[in-house]
């Protein structure tokens, strides 16, 4: 485990505010248990919990907070200078940080989704959701790490993507789903465990190719941006 990984993990977990991430997954499992316990049909509670809460809210919001936290917080504080002045190649800074962000997001989203999927249908759906959510966590993290290097307002930019592009537009203009990580995740999960709980208009091939493309492009973009990074003061 490299030092950068270690620093990033400590930066994430060392503060109290990391506890803010807990309520979302707990709520996800809690709602699933509640619905199951009261005997509601999975077809009724599955879509709002699994997709509406799990894949549309918990996954992107956790990825946004963690993904912009691993690098964006250091840029905000100005402590990124200490890492940048070490003789490390830039990819050795970006990749460990990305790995930590994706790992933390994947764990905190995949575990509750597995539980919810298990309660909704079967172990297979649970595993499918967990795997697809982990892939989605990697894609979102790559995107948000790149965003925190492209702009000084990464969280707001990420919110524009999550709220306006994925939340608002892809419900109205179905064509924009081709560029929405949320629908890639749904497509992948539905392919791994075909049920009637998940439905999307994006094909699995498109989803797989686009996810890989986003991960690779965003990672290379981050490495390239960090190569010519200029340290500036607080945004006005």
């Amino acid at each position, binding site marked *: 485990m490299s030092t950068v990984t270690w620093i990033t993990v400590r930066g994430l977990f060392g503060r109290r*505010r990391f506890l*803010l991430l807990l*309520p*979302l997954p707990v*709520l996800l499992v809690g*709602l699933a248990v*509640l*619905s199951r316990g*009261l*005997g*509601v049909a999975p077809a*009724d*509670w599955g879509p*709002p*919990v699994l997709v*509406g*809460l799990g894949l549309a*809210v*918990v996954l992107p*919001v956790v990825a*946004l*907070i963690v993904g*912009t*936290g691993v690098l*964006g*917080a250091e840029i*905000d504080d100005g402590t990124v200078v200490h890492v940048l002045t070490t003789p490390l190649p830039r990819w050795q800074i970006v990749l460990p940080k990305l790995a930590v962000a994706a790992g933390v997001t994947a764990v905190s989203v995949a575990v509750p989704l597995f539980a919810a999927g298990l309660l909704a249908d079967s172990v297979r759906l649970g595993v499918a959701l967990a795997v697809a959510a982990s892939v989605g966590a990697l894609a979102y993290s790559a995107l948000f790490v790149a965003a925190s290097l492209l702009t*000084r*307002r*990464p*969280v*707001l930019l990420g*919110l*524009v993507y*999550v*709220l*306006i592009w994925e*939340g*608002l537009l892809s419900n109205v203009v179905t064509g924009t789903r081709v560029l929405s990580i949320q629908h890639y995740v749904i497509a992948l999960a539905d392919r791994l465990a075909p049920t009637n709980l998940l439905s999307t208009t994006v094909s699995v091939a498109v989803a797989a190719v686009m996810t890989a493309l986003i991960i690779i492009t965003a990672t290379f973009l981050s490495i390239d941006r960090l190569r010519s990074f200029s340290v500036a003061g607080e*945004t*006005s």
Partner: protein
Amino acid sequence: MPEPTGVIHDIGYQRYTGPRLGRRHVFGALYLHGVRTAFGLGRSAKAKIFPWLVVGIVLLVAAAVTAIRSQIGEVIMTYAQFADAMSWLVIFFVAVAAPELVSRDLRSGVLPLYFSRPLPHADYPLAKLLALVTALFLLLGAPQLLMFLGGAFTADGMGAVWDELLDLLPGLLYAGLWAVVFASVGLLIASMTGKRAFAAGGIVAVFLMTTPIVGILSVLPSQTANQLAGIASPPTLVQGVGLWTMRDLLVTEDNSADLDLGSFGPVYALVAVALVAGCVALLLARYKKVAAR
């Protein structure tokens, strides 16, 4: 022993003897500054991007609705429905504006400077809250005014314009309700942290994670739970109050499958009032501590 050679020069320092504007002016200045901050006025172009992006989208939608209505004669949404349709954008605007209003001051540690003025500790949060409410009301009210102007100029006769106006006024009241509820919840969350990024994320998380709870409660096998489901989330709570007070303006033939309140309309109103009161009380308590430190 040498004589002291130092000289004290009179460089003209004077006490301020002019009129002192009291508490009302401090409050007014904070409020005006708050409204300007919410829209990024008087700040760099970067600070204007996100607020004006939202304003632009909202006005664009209003213009499109007006154009369709005047050309085809089809009413896509009423004035009151406009606020409901824009709920995601309202959430985003709160996530942009609320951290700008309070988190920056916390982060740069200027609160002791504010409270060293003759400013009661309740005035600071109240001025900020009022500013956010005003900004949200403008965000939702301006497009409705645009829709009204479009409707009024295509209407035939003063009677039709008067009818339009009677539709517009409840719509504006409803926008005010949205503004008060969202501003008080959003500002309370933003006042918890000095990091704008975390404040924005927290606001969105709180508003979004409550929506699926409504979805679950409304499929539970209990009619009472179904009818009370909307209380769990701020957008549906406001919607419930709106449905109770002005049902005919919010419900059209297209979306009759919306929230079913049963006989719990007054409960929704009470919860809305309690929510706002609770958030304001917590906000005041939060700034009491800062002021005392």
